[in-house]
């Protein structure tokens, strides 16, 4: 379980003032849980993810993974970035097995594991390709396989589908759900799409900017239903889905209005 306890982050702004990016955020991601952080840009969701990944120290508060404090990046927390960060000089296969290479796994074993992961994300025929020969959606699938390779306890995903067209995006959401259902990983996922958040999460947290904090939490179960029934359209057109979407939309708009009032 990943536990965020009263995490606050202060940055120094260019004009010499301090900016509070996170304000006493507390959050639990249980084993097998899929937590989606939702909010407008600047609400601190990426800051929160960077702190979880160990890229950013906290000003106060703590983050622990299964009781061990998080202080720097590590292979037990896999990260998928918005822009793909694949190494262009390595083949797709070698990109996927990069973490295994760092861990010192022998070539034969890591290739076998990387092939297995490429099958999981449906790219078994592209093992020898170069990343720059793939489309944006395929590259994000390689990024997902790469993050899964060292068998992390948690996946941290920073708007991974934000740059994709809406049709590819829906395919990627369905792929991610089946990978999550098969591997049982904890997932922390950032998005600014309400529909994506509702469709993917077992818990949706809504964040508001300046300072970044959690303003609402929803426990949802559409993702479990999708994992069982595999019919995305049926779920997204459910009245309960639409109601919750509108409820969250109202909250997001309210935080925007409040912000506009303070400026």
């Amino acid at each position: 379980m990943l536990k965020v306890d009263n995490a606050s982050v202060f940055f120094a702004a260019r004009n010499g003032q301090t900016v509070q990016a996170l304000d006493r955020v507390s959050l639990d991601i249980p084993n097998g849980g899929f937590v989606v952080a939702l909010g407008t840009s600047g609400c601190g969701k990426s800051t929160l993810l960077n702190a979880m990944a160990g890229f950013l120290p906290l000003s106060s508060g703590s983050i622990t993974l299964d009781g061990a404090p998080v202080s720097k990046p590590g292979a037990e927390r896999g990260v998928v970035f918005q822009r793909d960060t694949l190494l262009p000089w390595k083949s797709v296969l070698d990109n996927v097995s990069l973490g295994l290479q760092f861990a010192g796994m022998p070539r034969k074993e890591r290739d076998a594991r990387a092939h297995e992961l490429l099958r999981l994300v449906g790219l078994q025929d592209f093992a020898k390709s170069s990343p720059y020969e793939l489309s944006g959606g395929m590259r994000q699938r390689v990024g997902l396989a790469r993050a899964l390779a060292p068998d992390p306890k948690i996946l941290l995903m920073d708007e991974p589908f934000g740059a994709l067209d809406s049709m590819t995006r829906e395919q990627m959401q369905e792929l991610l759900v089946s990978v999550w259902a098969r591997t049982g990983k904890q997932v922390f996922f950032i998005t600014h799409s309400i529909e994506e958040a509702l469709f993917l999460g077992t818990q949706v947290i809504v964040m508001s900017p300046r300072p970044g904090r959690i303003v609402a939490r929803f426990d949802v179960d559409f993702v479990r239903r999708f994992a069982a029934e595999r019919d995305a359209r049926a779920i997204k057109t459910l009245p309960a889905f639409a109601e919750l979407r509108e409820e969250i939309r109202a909250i997001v708009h309210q935080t925007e209005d409040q912000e506009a009032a303070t400026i």
Partner: protein
Amino acid sequence: MTDLAAQLSVLQSIDASATVMLPDPKTATPKLVKMRSFGMGEGSTVFISVATGIAILSLWWLLAQTGWVPHLFLPTPSEVLLQAQSIWDDGYANATLWEHVSASLARILTAAAIAVLLGIPVGLLMGLNRWAKGVLDTPIEFYWPLPPLAYLPLMIIWLGIGEASKITLLTLAMFAPIVLSAQAGVRALPLERVNAALSLGATRWQLFGAVVLPSALPEILTGIRIALGVGWGTLVAAELIAANRGIGFMIMSASHFLATDAVFVGIGVIALCAFSFTLGMRLLEGWLVPWKGKN
């Protein structure tokens, strides 16, 4: 008939003519179009370049053959070719052509090897470490803008007239562009790429070998290309001043006897060498960094 009806009938006739104007895909080949381009466009420039080359050669031949430019200043192309043949067969200024060329090549290749072996690690270190950057920036920024020939006399006083002074001079001239490009390569490294490797469990050394060095490689190769250009300029100039072998020396001694045709041969040999170096670097880039510009 109302106005509306009249308008409708006009619209219908336009519609009909539009249908007629559609080309029949079976009989007519369609006119191929592409986006209007700005600047040079996509057409090949090979033909234009070759034609320009021929024009320049013809102009040269014309000027020399007719005697509009005195023969002492400008030999004809055929005389230069004859002189090239004779230098190839008998050598020039107490050495064969190959001895001149190999003397020059040995100097530039030795200096390039030293500059690459020292410059890449120093540049990478300067990109990664604040202290290395702070300490090394001062001397490099001081000497790098100086023309190498300005400190050649100093090199000769310190190291003598032999190979050591010339190789040191060349190494210094080639070192700076390699250092600066390796440093720029590290600085251009996206932080996300570093973070991705760290979250996959990379240690500092693994990060360096698997991410930092390959990321900087395209910039480093560009730096080596610039260094070789600087190297040829410095080499020939140094040989003009202090040498008894080398292409620069050959040109210098030919000019003492006003043997313009031999000067032309020397220039041609340098051009050929420099061109093959550029070609070699291009091949090396295609082999080492095929992903360059694709990401």
